[in-house]
């Protein structure tokens, strides 16, 4: 028996209520953007911290996109049949998240009506410029991959799966490089960031996918085999530990450099700053607790617990993005090594705080709601999820 994909009915009151709620939140997000740009001064940004959480949305959404795609498509590449049940939904979500990422760029830039310049002009030395090309082509690849799946073209699907994985790794490494190749800021500069981005993408994308599957199957009253989820959950837990390992290596290396002692002290050991909390909340609630949930036999087989772990991790990966983007801006650079420099007319030389405002949060939450709106409508319009997802489907 092959896997049967089927649209959902989507005619219950609850379904329409969900659509309306998501649409309202999405609209609120865009309204927040309009307010931010028309009135000005509603965000927490400054000339010292010009990149905030709306910017952090870019790598976050791309991570979620690449993550869900890599897992499902890898199953296609290596022909692991049992995960085929998730391949459509993963590809669909990947396309939806990349739209959120591109919109995040659009919301973040200062001149929206110059947006197309990013595509019209190309600067070969700018990593962001390469990414403008990568993101748009990635969306096309996701869409074609989904299309050949709908058409059940076996060989084309396998080829597209391979291409999609390759492109996802490229896109996400490129995104990591936007930040980590910045050599003017010590706290940004790290060769570990791109590989860490890939791991982080898979964990956050997978975590959210697991929760997604659980809720979708539950609300549509379809059958979801916990054994099938268990396998993915173990990959999820394993890679979260790898992420923890990367973070530890990177932090220890920075801490080893005497020139960075003050900065490292500020990032990891100063509880009065948001940077401190973004890191430690990630480590505790984003890595340690989810790993324990999955590995503990009492909770690790329960879909509800696994979903919780997935959501916790995916949510706190946003803190990881904050930890990546903000400290390097908040902590001042030494213009003349050995000398303390304090500007009289700007805030250079001082630790500048950055607290995201509600207006910025609304833009991020609005984009997330938009992705789920696209998903909820998608499962009604397209045959994305299987009638039943159980392990024995494979053996046929």
């Amino acid at each position, binding site marked *: 028996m092959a896997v049967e994909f089927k649209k959902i009915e989507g005619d219950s009151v609850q379904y329409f209520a969900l659509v309306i709620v998501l649409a309202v939140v999405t609209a609120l997000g865009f309204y927040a953007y309009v307010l931010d740009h028309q009135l000005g001064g509603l965000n927490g940004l400054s000339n010292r911290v010009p990149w905030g959480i709306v910017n952090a949305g870019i790598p976050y959404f791309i991570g979620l996109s690449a993550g869900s795609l890599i897992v499902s498509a890898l199953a296609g590449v290596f022909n692991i049949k049992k995960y085929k049940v998730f391949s459509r939904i993963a590809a669909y979500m990947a396309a939806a998240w990349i739209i959120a990422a591109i919109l995040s760029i659009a919301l973040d830039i200062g001149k929206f009506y110059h947006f197309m*310049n990013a595509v019209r*002009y190309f600067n070969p030395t700018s990593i962001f410029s390469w990414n403008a090309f990568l993101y748009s082509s990635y969306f096309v690849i996701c869409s074609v991959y989904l299309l050949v799946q709908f058409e059940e073209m076996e060989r084309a699907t396998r080829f597209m799966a391979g291409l999609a994985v390759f492109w996802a790794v490229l896109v996400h490494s490129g995104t990591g490089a936007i930040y980590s190749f910045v050599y003017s800021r010590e706290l940004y500069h790290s060769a570990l960031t791109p590989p860490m981005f890939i791991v982080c993408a898979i964990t956050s994308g997978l975590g959210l996918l697991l929760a997604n599957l659980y809720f979708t199957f539950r609300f549509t009253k379809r059958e979801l085999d916990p054994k099938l989820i268990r396998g993915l959950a173990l990959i999820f837990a394993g890679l979260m530990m790898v992420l923890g390992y990367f973070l530890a290596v990177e932090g220890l290396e920075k801490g080893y450099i005497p020139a960075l002692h003050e900065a490292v002290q500020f990032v990891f050991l100063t509880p009065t700053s948001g940077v401190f909390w973004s890191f430690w909340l990630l480590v505790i609630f984003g890595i340690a607790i989810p790993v324990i949930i999955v590995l503990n036999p009492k909770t690790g087989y329960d879909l509800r617990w696994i979903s919780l772990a997935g959501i916790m991790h995916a949510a706190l990966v946003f803190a990881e993005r904050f930890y990546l983007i903000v400290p390097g801006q908040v902590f001042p650079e030494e*213009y003349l*090594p050995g*000398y303390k420099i304090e500007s009289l*007319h700007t805030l*250079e030389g001082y630790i500048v705080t950055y607290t995201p405002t509600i207006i910025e949060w609304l833009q991020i939450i609005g984009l997330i709601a938009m992705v789920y709106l696209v998903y909820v409508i998608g499962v009604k319009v397209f045959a994305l999820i299987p009638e039943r997802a159980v392990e024995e489907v494979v053996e046929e």
Partner: protein
Amino acid sequence: MMSRRKFLLLTGAAAAGAFLTPQISAKTQFIESPEEVEAKRRWAMAVDVEKCTECMRELIAKTGNPEVKPPCVVACDKENNVPEFEDKRIDPQWMRIAKLELDKPEVNPKEFYIPLLCNHCENPPCVQVCLTKASFKRPDGIVEIDMHRCIGCRYCMIACPYGARSFNFRNPREGLKEVNPNVQMRTEGVVEKCTFCVHRIDEAVAKGEEPIPACVEACHKYGKGALVFGNIKDPNSEISKILRENIVVQLRANLGTDPHVFYTKLGGE
């Protein structure tokens, strides 16, 4: 029902429209070829830290204001339409003065003052990262921003090692009492920075005169003459002599950006 052909045509036209919207692009026009310019001119600035410190100390003592703007900064603001906003977090500043102190005050507790401005690097990181080539380097070494191209992504601000760039969180006109019509006005949502007073340079070069940026002019008129501007490709220029005869320091030279603001007499020789 729309036919497939019509649909494709419309989609194509919409895509073309999005790509090809007429936009004005500022192109720098030279009478000479870029190679000729590159061989002849490379603009740079030298700062005498001793004189700068003397000026600032006097000024602070006289006004009692530790954040007083010296003549150079005032002249820059005025010349280049740099707005004045009360909130320091978003106030754009092309030129600013910084207090400098050795990390070990027990060894040397003295405080020095230096101006900070765009370094017009030979290998500018801002140009390297700019998505649209809105930030570009001219053959004479000046790093400029094409305001029509800039999308306001602020990648250059992250990449600049010298904090030289400001973002227009607000419309600059709101923070200006008067506007100098000789300098391009910027809008909200783009990045701006010091241009070495490129408009003055181009005008002077066309007339065959020695160019002088507003800050340097003010420094000589009302200050101590700590700033010297000139062409380092000309071995007889004042700046070339200064660079030859002094120990000069470039900020964060280890990054390989090769900044072209040189600091001399640090520590008061």
